[in-house]
């Protein structure tokens, strides 16, 4: 069975792995600690695809009918 990328699917929003510096920056602007972010599991298929490891932060960009683009962050656990 050939493997295909989850990200190629139209319904999968873009997941981007943040660097430590970027992650730091995001937490500073949001004014929260890592643990207060929503979570994504490291064994989530899309997390595996981008190689996210527990403790890292993933940025998710979704298309929104009302807001155009909506950005969310998740802590990998």
């Amino acid at each position, binding site marked *: 069975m050939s493997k295909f990328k989850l990200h190629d699917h139209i319904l999968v929003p873009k997941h981007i792995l943040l660097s430590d510096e970027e992650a730091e920056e995001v937490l500073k602007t*949001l*004014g*929260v*600690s890592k643990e*207060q*972010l*929503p979570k994504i599991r490291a064994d989530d298929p899309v997390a595996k695809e981008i190689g996210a490891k527990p403790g890292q932060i993933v940025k998710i960009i979704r298309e*929104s009918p*009302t*807001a155009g683009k*909506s*950005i*969310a*962050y998740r802590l990998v656990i």
Partner: protein
Amino acid sequence: MIPKRIAGIRFEVLSPQEIRRMSVAKIITPETYDDDGYPIEAGLMDPRLGVIDPGLRCKTCGGKAGECPGHFGHIELAAPVIHVGYAKLIAKLLNATCKECGRILLKDDRRDHYINMIEQKKRLGQDCEDVIKEVFRVTKGVKVCPHCGTEQTEIKFEKPTFFYEGEHKLTPKDVRERLEKIPDEDLPAFGMNPKAVRPEWMVLTVLPVPPVTVRPSIILETGQRSEDDLTHKLVDIIRINQRFMDNKEGGAPQLILEDLWELLQYHVTTYLDNEVSGIPPARHRSGRPLKTLAQRLKGKEGRFRGSLSGKRVNFSARTAISPDPNISINEVGVPKIVAEELTVPFHVTDKNIEEARELILRTEHPKANYVIRPDGRRIRVLDTNREELAEKLEPGMIIERQLMDGDVVLFNRQPSLHRMSIMAHYVRVLPYKTFRLNPAVCPPYNADFDGDEMNLHVPQSLEAQAEAKILMSVQEHILSPRFGGPIIGGIHDHISGLYLLTRGEKLFTRKEVMSIIKPIEVKELPKPKYVKDGVEYWTGKQIFSMILPDITIEFKAEICQGCEECKKEKCEYDAYVIIKNGELVSGTVDEKAVGAFKGIIIDEIMRKYGSERTRKFIDDMTHLAIRAIMYTGFSFGISDEDIPEEAIKQIHEVIAEAEKKVEELIKAYREGNLEPMPGRSIEETLEMKIMQVLGKARDQAGKIASRFLGMDNSAVIMAVSGARGSMLNLTQMAACIGQQSVRGERIKRGYTYTNRTLPHFKPGDLGAKARGFVKSSYKEGLSPVEYFFHAMGGREGLVDTAVRTSQSGYLQRRLINALQDLKVEYDGTVKEQTSGMLVQFRYGEDGVDPTKSFRGKAVDVKRIINEVLSSEGEQVREYE
């Protein structure tokens, strides 16, 4: 300090040792107080159990009343008794274990298999109840013990606390001995943790005696002591316990001992729960059933729902509501007797001391009820002390002044499902006994006047009053966050009135105009539209324009027929509304313009001029509408549904035609000539086609009726303008009620074995009449068969609403519980308040407050463009 967190709660069963360990006194005598009124040692009111009398100190902890939490005592029971709460579990355990060796009736590997399953489920946070149920089910079927080979007999459980092995009755002592034999290793298979529960603890040998603080005695006016129900019950228990012991020592016959044992069991059972089935409840001398332990916790007035979740307040009132169109939407009419009881604190300073003095000296309505001195003493103002109190008044005192005009209060109607269910109103003290409210605020409260009651609360602090005025005023809630449009607006007569006033070109003389605009503030009349023979004439549209602020909008009215190509201002139905610079140029004002939920004009004024101006517009609009409808006169009666012979004939023809068509369809079906529709069986196809034909027939009948009723008919006016009712209602009244349905299908159930709905029909009749088609109109009246089918359809509707309300109520509760401490922060994020968890990065993804949205959309581009262009003297047309 690091806040401590509760990691979990574990429930265990108290062991006899534990009960003795936590006890501070062994209770042996049923007496409570001696002749001098002092509590007896080792009695139920033993001073070691805590204090309730002020002044005394606890013998155990030395605390005063209020400081000492109370301490448990215990009673050594002369014979073991079953705990009712565990009786069912005991029965299950007895049947699941060997009567001889006490082992579970399963081989060890099978037992371990179940234990593993339960542990795994618990680890995953799943419910293990079903596995435990299976263990009990499997073990009950085992006839021979796999460990010692003893044959098992089934134990029969009889409510509430009796166990029989065949004919032989087991005493609690027998039961306890059997439970003792169950080894710890077998318990996890029953979902029990041996560290927390030993099964024999479910048979009581020691009874804890709750502290006196839990069952305080009260002293009646006569000076007599009246004991708590729990104390009464404990007295009974100790008495029988004593009797049992005396008889046993005295060597009484077994029969008498057994009777006493059973009596002890009865008292302990009713002490724990006085509402168990199978035994009569213990009663007070007066015949009132006692309120024992379970009754304190259970039900609506119990500890959980009544004391912990329930809140009650002062400074509140409740009474029936009735309408008053003459008060503003942000006012509430408060009956004088209510206003005389409710108070607002008035803080006395040297600036207002004279005003305060006057209030105290008054003998009528807005007067002072109480004076509160700086030390907190409250003194009621009476005829006898009025002068004295006024004289002694000084800054720093607080007087409680009666509610009066202009005070701000919170007004509420249950079920309080959205924020508009509690709004701030200004008080108008009025005669009679009902709260009065402007009918235009009925929609947000979902109120009507068929006996509805509402609550009123008086905010006491200045902060609360300010908050109520700024955040909760009615005018701040004209736009609903539910759909971003007005929820407060014209209803019923307001819409009919303005429709009658503004439709077409109605002319009014000066005198008539003055009479209509009497309740509204108009400084200057516009120029009359026509002057004929020296008489000035104004149009209804001009009159309506007098209350409009400077706005410019265009829209299709509710009465719009949806013509293929809209002729705009030349619309023959006068259904295209154009308002130019606050002047109604064309179109009819109806529900779409000023109605609650739709009201485009209200929406526009709110966005352009804000809440206060909108409030004034709604007040003016309702006043004007009511004057207008009174000027024309508006009534509706049974004769308004009269249609001429000719129309009746046409309707009958249409229905006869349809019935014939149905017969043809059935014939085709029986002969097998019916072509099934894609994805449907032939039967389904037939049903759908019949429904279609009959539905069409009803619509046609309605069309015929409305053609003959005409646009001057009151019911038609109400239906088309959106004031009340629909054309369907009218059709059913005047022409034909139509198909009755149950679960979306034609009525088919009834005498199943003969396959017909009623004995009036032949078996298997699929015709219109036999399956619930009502061809009569409400006016004509229904035939008995039609009436029956109509009742079936009607009943389904009633049941549906009843079920839906209870379901949605519970859903709402859960939703509120889950979301109650989410808050939109100033940076637009949504956070959980206690943990600081981020829930949304931007409120609702787009950060839009739905109240300020335009019917759900973030911005109303068309409105903005129009505004920009109109400031340059141009207009863009509404295209839709």
